C-alpha cells in the first residue's frame, strides 16, 4: 500500500484539540462556545471524509510528528482500518454535539465549558487512536482519552460521581499502565519496532508462552474493551451525563478499547501467528464468557443506563469474538460490528437521555406507558434494539450474519451456540422495555406530569442515528470495502 | 619515629575516645575530647605531618573545644548516655 505524506491526518486529529482552546476562552458566551463545538465537529467529519476516496482506492496518508524513541516515532497514518473507525466516530460526534447542547441546556448543568472542552479533547484522542501508525502512538492517544474523559465521568462532582471517577481511572489507568505498557515494552524488546504491519511484527520472534502472556496482557490492558473481569468501570461510568454515556461509553471509549485489541490482533500478532499457536481460542473463550455473563446481568438491571452498559459489555465481546475466530467471515463480522453496534447503541443511549430529559426517569420499572407520550423516541429505541439483536433489515444483521458464518467456517458449534443464546438474551432484555413503553398501563397520576417529547435538539439526533442503523443494512458497501482492505490488503 | 612513644600515644588516644563517648557529663567529655585532639596532634607531629598537627592543635584542641564548651554552657551538661 502506498502512503503519501500529508498533513491531513494531523489536521484531522488536532482540529478538535486546538478547538478546545476557543471553547475554553469563550466560556462566558454559551452560544459562541457551542457554535465552536458544532463547527469543529462538522469540520472534523469533513476532513476525515475527504480522505475516504484515497483510502478506498487502496492508498492512505502518513504524517510523522517526532521521532521520540529510536524506531518509534509519533506517527499518524490513515489506513483502511483507521478510516473505518474514524468515519464512524466523527460522524456520530456531530449528532452527539447537537444532542449535548440540547441536553445540557435543558438540564441547566454546571461546568459546561469544562464539559465541552473535555469532549473536544476526547474526540481528538479517539481519532488519534484510529489514525495511529504504531502501538506507541496508539498508547499515547489511549491515555489521553482516559484522562480527558475523567472530568466527564466526574461531571456531577457529587460523592457518587467522584467515586465512579475513581473507579473509572483505577480500571482504565491501572490496566493500561499495569498490563498494556509492559506488554508494549516487551513487544518492542522482542521485535525492535512497534509499527502496525499487516501480518504482524512478532512472527518468529517469540515462543508460545511469551505470546500467550503478551496476548493476555494486551487484552486486559486495553480494559476499555470491557473484557471481564475488567469491565467494572463501565456500569460505574454511567453516572456521567447521558451524552457522555452515549457517545463515549457507547461509541468512542469502548470502541477504542476494541479497536486497540483488533489492531494488536491484526497488525502486531497477525492472524496467521495466532492461528499457528491456537491463540484465537483464548480470545474466543474470554469473549464468550463475557458475552453470556454480561447479557445475563443486563437482564437483572432496572436502571436503564446500567442495562445498556451491560449490554455494551456483551456486544463489545462480539467484536473480540469475531477477531478470535480467525476466519475471514468472523473477522469481517467482528470489525463490522464496531460500526453497526455504534449506530445502534448510540441511538439507545440518546433515547435513554431523552427520556430522562423529558420525564426525569431513570428506572425501567417507572417507564410504563411512556412510549405513547414519546412515540418518536420509542420508535427509535425499537430500531436500535432490533439492530443490536441482529434483526434484518437493520445494520446489526449484517455483522451478526458474518459472525455466524465465521463460526460455521471455523467449525465451532460451541461458538454458534453462544451467538444464538446471546441473541435471544439480547431480545429478552431489550424488547420488554419497548413493550412496557407502548402497551403497559401508565402509573396513576402520570397524566398530571404532562410528559411530552424531549426538545428537538435531542430528538433529531436520535432519529438520525436510528435511521442510520436502518440505512447501514442497505448501504454497507463503504464499510465492507474498508474491512476488506484491512483484512486482505 | 619511636615506636614505644607511638604505641603509648595510640593507646591513650583510644582510651580518650572511649572515655569521651561514655562520660555522662558533657562538659567533661568535651574537655577529654580536647585532650584526645591534642594526643592526635602529637601523633601526627611525630609522623612528620607538622602542618596537620599544627592545624589540629589550633582547631581540634583549641577552637573546636571552645565552640563545644560555648554550646554546652548555653544548653545543658547532662547526658543520659
Amino acid at each position, binding site marked *: 500500500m502506498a502512503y503519501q505524506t500529508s498533513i491531513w491526518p494531523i489536521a484531522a486529529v488536532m482540529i478538535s484539540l486546538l478547538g478546545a482552546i476557543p471553547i475554553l476562552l469563550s466560556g462566558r458566551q454559551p452560544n459562541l462556545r457551542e457554535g465552536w463545538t458544532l463547527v469543529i465537529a462538522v469540520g472534523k467529519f469533513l476532513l476525515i471524509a475527504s480522505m475516504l476516496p484515497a483510502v478506498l482506492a487502496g492508498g492512505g496518508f502518513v504524517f510523522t510528528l517526532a521521532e521520540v524513541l529510536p524506531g518509534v516515532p509519533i506517527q499518524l497514518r490513515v489506513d483502511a482500518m483507521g478510516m473505518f473507525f474514524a468515519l464512524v466516530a466523527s460522524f456520530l460526534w456531530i449528532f452527539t454535539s447537537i444532542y449535548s447542547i440540547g441536553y445540557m441546556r435543558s438540564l441547566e448543568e454546571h461546568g459546561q465549558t469544562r464539559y465541552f472542552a473535555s469532549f473536544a479533547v476526547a474526540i481528538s484522542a479517539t481519532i488519534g487512536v484510529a489514525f495511529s501508525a504504531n502501538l506507541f502512538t496508539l498508547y499515547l492517544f489511549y491515555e489521553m482519552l482516559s484522562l480527558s474523559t475523567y472530568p466527564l465521568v466526574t461531571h456531577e462532582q457529587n460523592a457518587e460521581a467522584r467515586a465512579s471517577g475513581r473507579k473509572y481511572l483505577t480500571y482504565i489507568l491501572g490496566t493500561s499502565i499495569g498490563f498494556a505498557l509492559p506488554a508494549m515494552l516487551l513487544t518492542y524488546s522482542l521485535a525492535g519496532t512497534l509499527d502496525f504491519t499487516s501480518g504482524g511484527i512478532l512472527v518468529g520472534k517469540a515462543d508460545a508462552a511469551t505470546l500467550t502472556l503478551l496476548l493476555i496482557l494486551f487484552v486486559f490492558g486495553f480494559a476499555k474493551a470491557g473484557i471481564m473481569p475488567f469491565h467494572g468501570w463501565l456500569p460505574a461510568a454511567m453516572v456521567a451525563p447521558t451524552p457522555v454515556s452515549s457517545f463515549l461509553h457507547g461509541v468512542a471509549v469502548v470502541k477504542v478499547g476494541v479497536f486497540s485489541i483488533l489492531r494488536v490482533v491484526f497488525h502486531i500478532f497477525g492472524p496467521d501467528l495466532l492461528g499457528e499457536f491456537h491463540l484465537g481460542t483464548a480470545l474466543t473463550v474470554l469473549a464468550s464468557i463475557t458475552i453470556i455473563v454480561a447479557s445475563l446481568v443486563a437482564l437483572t438491571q432496572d436502571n436503564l443506563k446500567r442495562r445498556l452498559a451491560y449490554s455494551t459489555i456483551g456486544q463489545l465481546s462480539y467484536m473480540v469474538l469475531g477477531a478470535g475466530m480467525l476466519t475471514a467471515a468472523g473477522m469481517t463480522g467482528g470489525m463490522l460490528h464496531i460500526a453497526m453496534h455504534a449506530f445502534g447503541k448510540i441511538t439507545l443511549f440518546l433515547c435513554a437521555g431523552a427520556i430522562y430529559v423529558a420525564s426525569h426517569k431513570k428506572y425501567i420499572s417507572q417507564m410504563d406507558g411512556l412510549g405513547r407520550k414519546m412515540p418518536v423516541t420509542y420508535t427509535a429505541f425499537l430500531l436500535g434494539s432490533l439492530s443490536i439483536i441482529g434483526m434484518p433489515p437493520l445494520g446489526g444483521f449484517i455483522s451478526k450474519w458474518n459472525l455466524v458464518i465465521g463460526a460455521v467456517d471455523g467449525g465451532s458449534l460451541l461458538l454458534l451456540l453462544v451467538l444464538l443464546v446471546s441473541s435471544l438474551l439480547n431480545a429478552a432484555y431489550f424488547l420488554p422495555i419497548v413493550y412496557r413503553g407502548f402497551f403497559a398501563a401508565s402509573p396513576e397520576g402520570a397524566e398530571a406530569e404532562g410528559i411530552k417529547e424531549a426538545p428537538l435538539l435531542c430528538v433529531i439526533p436520535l432519529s438520525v442515528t436510528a435511521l442510520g442503523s436502518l440505512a447501514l443494512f442497505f448501504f454497507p458497501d463503504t464499510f465492507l470495502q474498508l474491512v476488506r482492505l484491512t483484512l486482505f490488503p | 619515629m619511636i615506636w614505644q612513644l607511638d604505641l603509648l600515644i595510640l593507646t591513650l588516644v583510644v582510651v580518650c575516645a572511649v572515655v569521651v*563517648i561514655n562520660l555522662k557529663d*558533657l562538659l567533661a567529655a568535651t574537655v577529654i575530647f580536647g585532650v584526645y585532639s591534642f594526643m592526635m596532634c602529637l*601523633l601526627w607531629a611525630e609522623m612528620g605531618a607538622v602542618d*596537620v598537627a599544627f592545624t*589540629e592543635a589550633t582547631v*581540634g584542641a583549641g577552637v573546636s573545644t571552645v565552640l563545644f564548651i560555648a554550646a554546652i554552657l548555653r544548653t*545543658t551538661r547532662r547526658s543520659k548516655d
Partner: protein
Amino acid sequence: MDAFMTEVVAKYNYWIYVILMMIGFYAMIGKRNLVKKLLGLNIFQTAIILLFISAGVKRGGGIPIVDKHAALEHGVHAAQTVNPLPHVLMLTAIVVSVSVTGVALAVLLRIWREYGTLEEDEILEKLSQ
C-alpha cells in the same frame, strides 16, 4: 597466628584507626544524646585523618619542608621526606570537620530553644504529643 600477628604489627596504625572509627561510628548511630553524636562524628573524622596521615608516612622520611636553595641547586630525593599529599588533603578535611561541627552546634542550640532537651528520645516524645 604468627602470620596474623606479623600483619597486625606491620599495620598497627590501621588497626587503631579502625578502632577509633568504630568508636565514633557507634556514638553517631547508637547514642541518644545529640552532643554525643556530634562528638562521635568528630572522632570518626579524626580516625579518617589518621588513616590518610598513616598512608603518607615513610620510614626514615623527614618533615615535608625543604631547604629552598639546597633544593634548587641539588634537587630533593623523594625518599627524604614524607608524602605531603595526604597532609594537604587532611588540612582540608579538618576544616570541613570544624565547619560541620560549628553548624551542628548552632542547630543544637536551635533544638534546645525549641524543645529544651538534647536527648533524641525526649524530643521525639515531645513531638508525638
